[in-house]
């Protein structure tokens, strides 16, 4: 069923990781993603991995959800692994059969690439698992605030993002409803070739667009009726602040950065 698709993968919780300021999580995730590209020693990878595992344990999200987060990239990881394994040449040959040649350097490089990919996705997964999309947009808005000085529409973009996120489940539900109604009238969304399938989507897409425009119009009216007039002077109902736990997080990531910077 279409409704079962959960967008974003926020896993509600009360852990210190969840309670952390979303700005901290956003910045630290970016830092981690950048430094993963600079790591070139096993100890470095170990440090980053340990940090992420620690985060996962503290967040109490559960291994299954973390695994679900990285599952989509596993095929890509496997593909890169195989490609690297066969095409990176080196000196120490460990396996040779006809034209297939596997070298120790190739093997090492392939493993490193996979580890890198997994760590990259894992760090962003940990952020999205513990931060609700709304917190994330708010954090983004506050971090980008300085840009509004040079005329960048920070507030508008953040508002658009949160509205879009808010309406994704609504539209999915709507799609499900219309799909069922048209199926009951005899529409078939599964049979036929590509062109037939695309044509079959018309009875679904037209009502969906009509309702999306109607919703947008209603929302705009409702916002104006409640005196919305842009970001100027608008305050937030819940303002998050930096706490001690944010300091700890910065310190932990900082430590890892130093270790890597020192060349380990």
């Amino acid at each position, binding site marked *: 069923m279409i409704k079962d698709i959960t967008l974003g993968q926020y896993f509600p919780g009360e852990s210190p990781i969840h309670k952390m300021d979303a700005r901290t999580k956003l910045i630290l995730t970016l830092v981690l993603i950048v430094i993963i590209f600079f790591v070139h020693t096993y100890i470095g990878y170990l440090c980053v991995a340990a940090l992420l595992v620690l985060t996962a344990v503290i967040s109490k999200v559960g291994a299954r959800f973390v695994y679900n987060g990285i599952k989509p990239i596993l095929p890509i990881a496997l593909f890169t692994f195989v490609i690297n394994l066969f095409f990176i040449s080196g000196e120490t040959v460990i396996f040779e059969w006809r034209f297939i040649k596997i070298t120790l350097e190739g093997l090492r490089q392939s493993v490193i690439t996979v580890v890198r990919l997994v760590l990259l996705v894992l760090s962003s997964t940990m952020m999205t698992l513990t931060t609700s999309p709304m917190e994330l947009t708010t954090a983004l808005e506050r971090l980008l605030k300085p840009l509004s000085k040079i005329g960048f529409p920070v507030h508008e973009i953040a508002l658009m993002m949160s509205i879009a996120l808010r309406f994704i489940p609504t539209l999915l539900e709507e799609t499900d409803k*219309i799909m069922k109604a048209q199926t009951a*009238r005899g529409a078939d969304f599964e049979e036929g070739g590509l062109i037939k399938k695309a044509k079959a989507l018309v009875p679904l897409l037209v009502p969906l667009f009509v309702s999306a425009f109607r919703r947008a119009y209603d929302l705009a009216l409702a916002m104006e009726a409640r005196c919305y007039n842009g970001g100027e002077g608008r305050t937030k109902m819940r303002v998050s602040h930096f706490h001690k736990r944010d300091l700890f997080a910065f310190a932990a990531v900082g430590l890892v950065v130093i270790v890597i910077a020192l060349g380990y």
Partner: protein
Amino acid sequence: MPITTEGLRFEYAPGTPFSHVALEDISVTIDDGSFTSLIGHTGSGKSTFIQLIAGLIKPTAGKIYLDGEDINQKGYDKKKLRRKIGVLFQYPEYQLFEETVEKDIAFGPTKAGFTEDEVAVKVRKAMELVGLDYETFREKSPFELSGGEKRKVAIAGVLATDPQILILDEPIAGLDPIGRQDFMEMVRDLNRGGKTVIMISHNMDDLAEYSTRVIALYQGKVYLDGTPNEVFSRYGHLKRAGLDLPETGKVIQKLRDRGIDIDREIITKDALIRELKKLLGGKDD
């Protein structure tokens, strides 16, 4: 063609932390030509039930038979099912998509495999049935019509296939009183003409007036099942399931509270008026 369900069970998102049993162990038979009403509090499983018997979702366990054939068995012709069962959802006007009213109404019968001539006849008939003038409306875009007219087009779109079984999921929500009465009378006429009607509604008065059978669902199970008189006279049960009484029931309850002995099985307005006249007449003498 009766619909029979056996041990029907439906679970949303099974095997995940969000799983939720919507229906459990539903075994009912809905007879041909009956007017069956489904009542129940929000989340009682009414909508899930009709989607199951319309073959729009598959049960987690249990069987659904239409004419003795399991509709979820391999090789069952879903097209046949769609021709036999018409489903009208809440706010059906949101399913309109074609350029003209005529084309939109023709969508169902065309998909059901009728010839062009047959479709044209059916569209015309369906429009007459819902009270839309064929010549005035056929070339109009469904999006330029008023809310009430859109609703009529959508209803015609479902009726055009001429289904033997009509499933109605709160079809009168958002209609004005006159529109509601027109609609209910149309449904009653279709039912009298031999069609099986299965209807979900929160309007107990309509249901008391028109149904031949009422099934109350509560927490995914059949809670009450019987004639409208039987079901709507069980005030205590209805209250426990979070259900409203028909207006007549409310009046009768107040009268009984004051010690006036009046039959609880009176559920229609006309019957109540007759009874009250009799009671009052008796006192006057």
